[in-house]
């Protein structure tokens, strides 16, 4: 009897403990971002509280400077182009992989996933080695190709996962009713896997959008993206302008988060 009460008591304490501990960890996760964002509205250029006054000046500074504008444009140009390539190639490959008849799965799948696993510095140095003689260093094309390669595993994984849940009898039924392979893909398969394709492409975009090591090695001034510009800023002169950019990127992160949640809602799967 008494052991039971201590057991219940200790369970209650343990539950309380888990809650308090988890709350602390969750605070640790968001605190840096929450502390940084208000500082980007601070009038003084020092990074300390209390705020001396509110201003949008740092945001104006960032959005008005030609360097940051170019970085923002580059980030989207490179990110969207790389995503387009990664999505097209990755989706096609995923359709192949998910067929039961796919040969050498044990060899090919790890190869397709490898860009996610291999340390990024190794990728960056290797790309310099090959791209420099081809004249692809310091070009947009070079960075786009590199980022597309880094993004493909995400598309392959999400689309394959989606296709595994896809009922193949549907496409067989469509084919037996006289649909061409293209029609089967377009009308039966694509609508089914589209949420997976979209999720994968968002991951691929985010990969490119956040990538800085490859750009450090194979990109030049003309290819500076937002993270590359932030890297320069940290090493150069940290002013609240960088924090303003960080604030904008955080908002962007929330948008991506909502987008993924919405896509998963559509696909009927619970959020992550």
């Amino acid at each position, binding site marked *: 009897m008494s052991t039971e009460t201590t057991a219940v008591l200790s369970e209650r304490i343990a539950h309380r403990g888990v809650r308090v501990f988890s709350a602390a960890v969750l605070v640790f996760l968001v605190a840096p971002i929450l502390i940084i964002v208000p500082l980007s509205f601070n009038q003084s250029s020092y990074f300390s509280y209390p705020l001396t006054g509110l201003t949008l000046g740092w945001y104006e500074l960032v959005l008005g400077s030609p360097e940051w504008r170019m970085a923002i444009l580059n980030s*989207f*140009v*490179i990110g*969207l*182009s790389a*995503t*387009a390539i990664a*999505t*097209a190639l990755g989706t096609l490959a995923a359709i192949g992989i998910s067929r039961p008849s796919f040969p050498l799965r044990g060899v090919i799948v790890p190869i397709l996933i490898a860009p996610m696993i291999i340390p990024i510095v190794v990728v960056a140095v290797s790309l*310099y080695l090959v791209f*420099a*003689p*081809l*004249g692809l*260093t*310091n*070009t*947009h*094309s070079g960075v*786009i190709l590199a980022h597309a390669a880094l993004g493909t595993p995400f598309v392959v994984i999400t689309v394959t996962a989606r296709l595994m849940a896809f009922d193949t009898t549907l496409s067989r039924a469509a084919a037996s009713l006289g649909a061409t392979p293209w029609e089967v893909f377009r009308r039966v398969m*694509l*609508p089914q896997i*589209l949420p997976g*394709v*979209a999720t994968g492409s968002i991951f691929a975009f985010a990969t490119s959008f956040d990538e800085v090591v490859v750009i450090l090695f194979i990109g*030049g*001034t*003309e290819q500076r993206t937002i993270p590359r510009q932030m890297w*320069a800023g940290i*090493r*150069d*002169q*940290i002013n609240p302008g960088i924090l303003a950019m960080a604030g904008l990127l955080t908002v962007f992160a929330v948008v991506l988060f909502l987008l993924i949640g919405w896509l998963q809602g559509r696909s009927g799967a619970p959020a992550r």
Partner: protein
Amino acid sequence: MFNVLKSSRRMLLMATGVMALAAPAVAADTLTVVTFGGSFESAVDKAFFVPFTAKTGTNIVKEDYDGGLAKLRGMVEAGNTTWDLIDMETNDAIAGCDEGLLQKLDPKLLGDTSDFIPGAVLPCAVASMVWSTIYAYDTTRLTTAPTTIGDFFDVTKFPGKRGMRKSPKVALEWALIADGVPVKDVYKVLGTPEGLDRAFKKLSTIKSQVVFWDAGAQAAQLLADGAVSMTMAYNGRIRVAQQQDKRPFAIVWDGQVYDYEWWAIPKGAKDTDAAKQFVSYASGPDTIWKLSNYIAYAPPRKSAVPQVDKAVLPYLPLAPDNFKNGLQIDAQFWADNFDSINNRFTTWLSQ
């Protein structure tokens, strides 16, 4: 579903369209100039780049690096030089010329070469200015003012972190000076194996207290953040921080190590003619002194000194008050030994 499909297709089209737009690389009339970045870059921009572009229409693309020849060697070997003009330190300008990484410079571009101070014209490069490595501290954070190189190495009397460039240059010279070697004998001692050991040994005494930086701008940043109590720095950067950012920094000129800075055109530069035109322009007697008005580095032409803003003069490396215990870097020593000593330095760093 159909809407999503349509919009995603539009996105794809847009992306490929944007890619096509982005594809054409740097147009023909641009000059890629590589400097040490930060406030030096903005000074060069105001003094030379903007007026040069206004005069010739040549667009200048600014890149930055932290010195050294590795990047350039990589480009030249790959046969794809993406730089047109480089701002270099002396030992790199000498070694780069020896190795065939730089183009020979026609002295005719420079006009009257006798107007340059001695040693300011090399086979592959021409001096752009005279700068100095000094150390600086934040006057609001230190109660007693340090005055010598010895003080920089004295972490008991002056506690706190030290900022130093991630390079053996100047670090080893200072280590010897702090260890009691007179300024005039520094390279004599450093040239011997025992002297080199001695310098590393002295440097090791403060290693745990040192924050190493790569880019020149980081030095002032570390000091401003309070991450270090004193830092090795390039004098011009500290002056800019004092003047423009109103930082309470003070410079210790004792044991300053000064050096020339150079313009050099790399082998395989895409637009050699524009680069030459720029060198000629920026080295001209009517232009060269302008840099000093934006950053406290001295012009290497005799005729240029009187034109510099008088208010700037006391902050230049060669001003008499600053020069009492100064040392010119032995560039030939470093051109010959940089790679081997730097190897040892890198090893020492990661141990």
